[in-house]
C-alpha cells in the first residue's frame, strides 16, 4: 500500500508525520519525494549510497548538416530551440527531453546526448525503514522526472510512505498521483486552513482517498475541525502543540522514538486508513 503525506504549504509537519509513521510500522519503505529539499535523512542519519543517475535526453545539433528548415524550432513546445537566420540555438534549461526534434529532423542534424537531472539514493544495507530519496541537481527544473524515477523503487509487497513536496504544483501531482491514500497535514491557523483547502481540491481531483492530520493542535482555532466535519473528511490524528514534541523535533529526533505512546497512535491511524479504504472499496462495488 502506498500512502503519501502531503500539505498545501511547507512547514506544517509533513516530514515529521512521514518519519513517525514510517518508524511506527514494520516492513515499510520511506521515500523522500521533496527532491529539491530532501530533509528526512536529517532526522534518520542513515549512510546513503547512490543507486541511480536520473538523466534525460538532450539534442545536440550538428550545424554543418542543419539546413535551418525551422521544423524543430516550430515543433518544440517548450521553446528550447531558436532557429535564427544562420543557425539553430539550443537552450538546455528549457528542454524536456521529449526527443521529438531528433526524430523529425529530415537532415539528421540532431543527435541525442544525455543530461543529468539528479540522483536516487538509498540507505546503505538493511535499514528500518528502508529509505530512498531523490536529489535534484541545482539549477534543474525537471523535478517530476526525478520523482517518477524515485517511485520505481516502491516495492508493492511493502507499505510505502511517500513524503511529498509541499504545495500543489506538478511535483506534488507526480508524488501523489497514483497512491492508495493521501494524508494531508495541516495546522489550525488561517494560513493552514487556506492551504488545506487547496490541497483538498488537488487530492479530490486526483480521486485519491484522504484524511487530515492536525499538527500543533491547540494552536489557532477550530476552523479546520469544523471544515472537515462539514465536508465529511476524517481527522486521522491530532498532534498537540506539545513542548516535548517541539523539543525533540529541534534536536532532530522523530518523537515516536522517545514517546512510545505515539507508536500506538500512528499504528491506530494506519489501521483507520485501512478501514477507510475497505469502506470506500465496498461503496464502489
Amino acid at each position, binding site marked *: 500500500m502506498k500512502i503519501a503525506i502531503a500539505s498545501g504549504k511547507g512547514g506544517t509537519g509533513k516530514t515529521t508525520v512521514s518519519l513517525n509513521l514510517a518508524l511506527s510500522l514494520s516492513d515499510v519503505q520511506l521515500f523522500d519525494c521533496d527532491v529539491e529539499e530532501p530533509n528526512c535523512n536529517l532526522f534518520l542519519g542513515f549512510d546513503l549510497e547512490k543507486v541511480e543517475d536520473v538523466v534525460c535526453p538532450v539534442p545536440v545539433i550538428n*550545424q554543418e548538416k542543419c539546413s535551418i528548415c525551422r521544423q524543430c524550432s516550430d515543433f518544440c513546445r517548450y*521553446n*528550447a530551440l531558436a*532557429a535564427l537566420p544562420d*543557425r*539553430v540555438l539550443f537552450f538546455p*534549461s*528549457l528542454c524536456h527531453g521529449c526527443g521529438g526534434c531528433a526524430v523529425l529532423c529530415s537532415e539528421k542534424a540532431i543527435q541525442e546526448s544525455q543530461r543529468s537531472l539528479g540522483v536516487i539514493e538509498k540507505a546503505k544495507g538493511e535499514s528500518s525503514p528502508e529509505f530512498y530519496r531523490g536529489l535534484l541537481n541545482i539549477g534543474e527544473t525537471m523535478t517530476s522526472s526525478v520523482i517518477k524515477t524515485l517511485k520505481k523503487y516502491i516495492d508493492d509487497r511493502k507499505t510505502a510512505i511517500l513524503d511529498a513536496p509541499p504545495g500543489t504544483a506538478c511535483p506534488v501531482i507526480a508524488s501523489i498521483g497514483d497512491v492508495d491514500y493521501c494524508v494531508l497535514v495541516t495546522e489550525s491557523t488561517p494560513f493552514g486552513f487556506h492551504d488545506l483547502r487547496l490541497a483538498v481540491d488537488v487530492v479530490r481531483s486526483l480521486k485519491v482517498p484522504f484524511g487530515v492530520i492536525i499538527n500543533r493542535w491547540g494552536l489557532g482555532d477550530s476552523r479546520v475541525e469544523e471544515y472537515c466535519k462539514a465536508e465529511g473528511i476524517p481527522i486521522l490524528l491530532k498532534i498537540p502543540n506539545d513542548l516535548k514534541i517541539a523539543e525533540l523535533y529541534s534536536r532532530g529526533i522523530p518523537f515516536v522514538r522517545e514517546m512510545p505512546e505515539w507508536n500506538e497512535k500512528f499504528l491506530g491511524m494506519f489501521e483507520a486508513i485501512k478501514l477507510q479504504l475497505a469502506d470506500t472499496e465496498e461503496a464502489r462495488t
Partner: protein
Amino acid sequence: MVIKETGGVKRMNICVTASGEGLDSKVDPRFGRCSYFVIYDPETRRVESVSNAAAFASGGTGIKAAEIIANAGVDVLLTGTVGPNAFSIFSELGINVQVGVKGTVQEAIRQYEAGELQSLQSPNSTPGFGMRKGNGMGKGMKGGGVGRGIDRDN
C-alpha cells in the same frame, strides 16, 4: 551607441515593442510579452507590424520572441526589459538593444535617433516560469556574436 546612417548604404531596421500596430500605438516595455513588434525602416519609411506569436507561450517566451525579431532582419531593438535567453540571442546576432522607451512607437524612434536611450549590456529581467534557475545561455554557438557586422544576406 548610436549607429549613424551613412547615406543610405546600410539598411537599418528598427523594431519597437508595442501594444498595437503602427507608429501611433503605445510602446510595451515587456519584450517577450508585448503584443506587436513594429518594425520601421528609416530609409524607405516602411512600417511593418508583426504580431508576437510568443506572447502567450508558457515558457521560453523570450526565445521565441527573439527568434521572430532575428528572422525579421531587425538590427536595432527598442524596448524595456529583456531576459537572459533573449539577450543571449541578441548578442549572438549583434542586434543592438536599447532600453528606456516611453510613449508611442513614433516617439521611441525619435528618442533613439536623438540618442536618448541606453544600450543594454546585460539582461535586465528574469525569465518567466518554465525556467527557474538556469543560466540562460544558448549552446551551439559559433564564435562570439557581439560586435559582428549587422548586414545579413537574407
